[in-house]
């Protein structure tokens, strides 16, 4: 037993280490592992017996099969388009003499912060085949009955998703381009290699792992994405895996067959997510070379010369289309007296906003979302800190299990978590949280725990062991060194984790939409339901509030993070 104890020189035979470890594992098992296992169990067994034949039958059903195909088509399309845009823009921002680059860099990341389902509503308003404002204008001007673009289509879904997911590649690749040692390119230049050849033979091969890693992230998200296909696809009977699960569960009437179909679909999602993460790991590992610069140098910039301003204009147009236009649309429609009226001052009113503020349902949704996200952020931050401490700092046997459990939710899409949580917490194990806030709370914790562990582990890894050991050798006990050294140093990481969970949780849709009850709507669910019910103006009014909360939150985060960078940093 004593060999198990962390070799931290504690004189006791039985340290607190095992207790902490056991507790952490227990929390993760209950919150994360059991729901996933429940899904697998339900997918593959009938009445407690293994039954693969049914699984095959379910997959053969046209509904299921089509959803699989659709998910794949969308994922491929979004990944392709998003990767192209991400690489293009990151190259422009990192490696050319494009003006206003730091502003552009910020603007290109903005779509990442905005909830994509709100964007989808905006695009529905603008580009629905006959009633979309842009389509209407187009048809009026050219006197045609053919719309400019039908957003209710596979192409529409791909385009809208791409707008919100391309930052994955953008961020990965621009980071790689910035970190890349500029002398790798300069050495080619001075050897007489022309710029184009350098780009093809040196730059792109070197950032390829980052491109692929970003692309796989897009694929992972797109495959399991609910919001956009739910808003733009259901209209034309187009379902992907998450929206089909949603439909099945919502029209199930609690029947086992529907839940079973859901679990089989969820299993497919888990499998594809695991495959994608595995591929990503492989790619990152095969990036056998480090391209990081020793000292910071300004990289070589490609001179755009005459095309500089046209390209700048193109970037601004892109940002206008992806960020400003939909946001403005949401706000304007939120202020319309009724949907369908032209945007004229006489049709504008603040009544919807006032209504949203006073309406019980929306107030409840807002307070639910606030409570849920604050609570989930707080609990995951604390639990994540403890679990990360065990993973990073403690020399305890069996912590590999924690590591595995900790990152598991990363590969489990929100829909799957929701389904697993329903299966686990609907009385099967004696606790019935169905239709309560707690079931959403449990799902949020499962969904966001990995974020917290990742963020806290990164912070803890910065705190070198010797900092703690130095305190011990100065006469501080284990607890004192935790309190005086470790906690103050990881505090910025903990705060960052708190907000990194708070914001996405505030606008969460995918998980909540499967779990909400009559009294437990969240902001995301409320907007989605209002839109589905045809209360478009109210949906937009509520979305306006949601956007304001999100923007405010982002500003707070940036403040905190920049304050952290300014001050003394860990390690």
């Amino acid at each position, binding site marked *: 037993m004593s060999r198990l104890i962390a070799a931290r020189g504690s004189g006791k035979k039985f340290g607190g280490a095992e207790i902490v470890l056991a507790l952490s594992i227990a929390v993760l098992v209950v919150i994360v592992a059991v729901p996933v296992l429940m899904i697998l169990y339900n997918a593959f067994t009938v009445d407690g017996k293994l039954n693969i034949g049914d699984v095959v039958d379910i997959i053969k059903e046209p509904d299921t099969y089509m959803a699989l195909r659709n998910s794949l088509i969308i994922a491929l399309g979004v990944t392709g388009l998003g990767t192209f845009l991400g690489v293009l823009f990151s190259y422009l921002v990192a490696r050319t003499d494009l003006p206003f680059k730091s502003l552009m860099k910020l603007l290109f990341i903005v779509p990442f912060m905005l909830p994509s389902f709100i964007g989808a509503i905006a695009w529905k308003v603008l580009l629905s085949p006959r009633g979309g404002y842009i389509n209407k204008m187009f048809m009026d001007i050219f006197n045609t009955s053919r719309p400019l673009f039908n957003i209710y289509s596979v192409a529409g879904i791909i385009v809208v998703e791409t707008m919100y997911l391309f930052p994955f590649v953008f961020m990965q690749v621009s980071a790689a381009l910035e970190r890349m040692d500029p002398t790798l390119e300069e050495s080619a230049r001075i050897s007489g290699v022309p710029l184009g050849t350098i780009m093809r033979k040196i730059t792109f091969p070197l950032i390829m792992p980052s491109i692929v890693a970003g692309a796989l992230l897009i694929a992972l998200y797109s495959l399991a994405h609910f919001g956009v296909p739910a808003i733009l696809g259901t209209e034309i009977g187009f379902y992907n895996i998450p929206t089909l699960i949603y439909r099945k569960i919502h029209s199930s009437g609690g029947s086992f067959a529907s839940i079973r179909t859901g679990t089989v679909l969820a299993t497919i999602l888990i499998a594809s997510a695991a495959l994608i993460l595995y591929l990503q790991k492989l790619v990152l590992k095969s990036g056998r070379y480090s391209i990081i610069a020793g000292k910071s140098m300004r990289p070589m910039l490609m001179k755009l010369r005459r095309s500089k301003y046209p390209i700048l204009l193109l970037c601004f147009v892109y940002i206008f289309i992806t960020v400003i236009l939909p946001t403005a649309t949401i706000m304007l429609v939120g202020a319309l007296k009724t949907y369908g009226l032209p945007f004229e001052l006489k049709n504008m009113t603040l009544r919807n906003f006032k209504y949203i503020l006073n309406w019980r349902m929306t107030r409840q949704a807002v307070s639910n979302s606030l409570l849920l996200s604050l609570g989930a952020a707080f609990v995951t931050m604390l639990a994540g800190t403890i679990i990360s401490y065990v993973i990073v700092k403690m020399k305890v046997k069996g912590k590999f299990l924690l590591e595995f459990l900790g990152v598991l939710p990363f590969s489990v899409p929100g829909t799957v978590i929701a389904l697993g949580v329903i299966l686990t917490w609907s009385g099967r194990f004696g606790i019935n949280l169905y239709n309560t806030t707690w079931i959403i709370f449990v799902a949020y914790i499962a969904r966001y725990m990995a974020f917290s562990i990742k963020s806290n582990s990164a912070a803890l890894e910065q705190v070198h062991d010797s900092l703690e050991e130095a305190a011990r050798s100065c006469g501080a006990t284990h607890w004192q060194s935790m309190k005086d050294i470790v906690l103050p140093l990881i505090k910025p990481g903990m705060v960052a984790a708190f907000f990194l969970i708070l914001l996405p949780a505030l606008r969460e849709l995918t998980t909540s939409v499967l779990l909400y009850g009559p009294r437990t709507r969240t902001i995301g669910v409320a907007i989605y339901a209002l839109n*589905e019910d045809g209360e478009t103006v109210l949906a937009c009014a509520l979305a306006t509030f949601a956007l304001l909360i999100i923007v405010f939150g982002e500003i707070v985060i940036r403040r905190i993070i920049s304050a952290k960078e300014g001050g003394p940093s860990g390690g």
Partner: protein
Amino acid sequence: MKRAITLLVLAAMLGLSVAATAAPKMQLMVYTSMKEVLISELIDAFLKKNPSVRIDYYSAGAGKLMAKIATEKQANALVCDVLWTSEVPDFYQMKAQGALEPYVSPEAKNIVSPVKDKEGYFTPARLGTLGVAYNTNKVKNPPKTWEDLLKPEFKDGFAIANPALSGTSMVSVGMIVENLGWEYIQKLRGNGALMGQGSGQVVDDTAIGDLKACLGVDYIVINKIKEGASLGFTYLDKMLVIPSPVAILKGTKNLEAAKLWVDFMLSKEGQSIIANSFTLPIRADVPIVQGVGLVTPAEAEKRAMKLDYIKLMSDKEATIEKFTSIMTK
């Protein structure tokens, strides 16, 4: 900063536990397919009368509500106390399954309705009607008969809400099929008619011009017209009149409150609120709103298409499927 976050979080935790556990003496949850504009005023008035009851409602399409109730039963966590939708067959079905609690309200004797349940398993609480909602910019000659909808004026621009989502639409389709036959649906489709989303959405789509016209629920359309939408509303020769019954679910823990609610809905005060929301009351002694195109309950009953609800109950799935397959081909 730190203290602020801690406080916020403590408040959140507290709120969460309050929201989840604390409760006043009497609680009531109404599941309804009625829209916000219709139900919220009813709730407010009810609360004024019965301050000791904490009433909540959950508004969604009838199909969704039924699924939700079924799931709740599966999970043994029934939340719904009272159900109020327009999908009449569901009530027959639930009655047959023994899922409803019989209650004959003292107010029930004043009701005028094509559908009634003597044992009181459900009671009509509103007489919904569907007319044609049309976009005034696109439709210059409002239709008068069902045949009018087959004219070129409505080509590729007329929709009926998805009967799988909307109870009124489900019953409407049943009525059309029973009175005009599947051939009529085929002809509609031949003229490019579409199957829309929920009953609210088809009206919205018409308002914005995505559709030229649709089958629209009275109060939904009229409310939008009142808000300034470019919509018109008209009834056809044969009317779609659908009572919206209310029922108490068996096993409710809030039977007393549920009865109070049913009584209130059927009372003169309750019916007046319903009537003032631009739909038809089920009481003859409550006047309708004039000048918005509504007809009296008596006339509505006279012009109404007939429907065998019991039969529709058993044909429901098949009807939805056939309709869907015709409209999406």
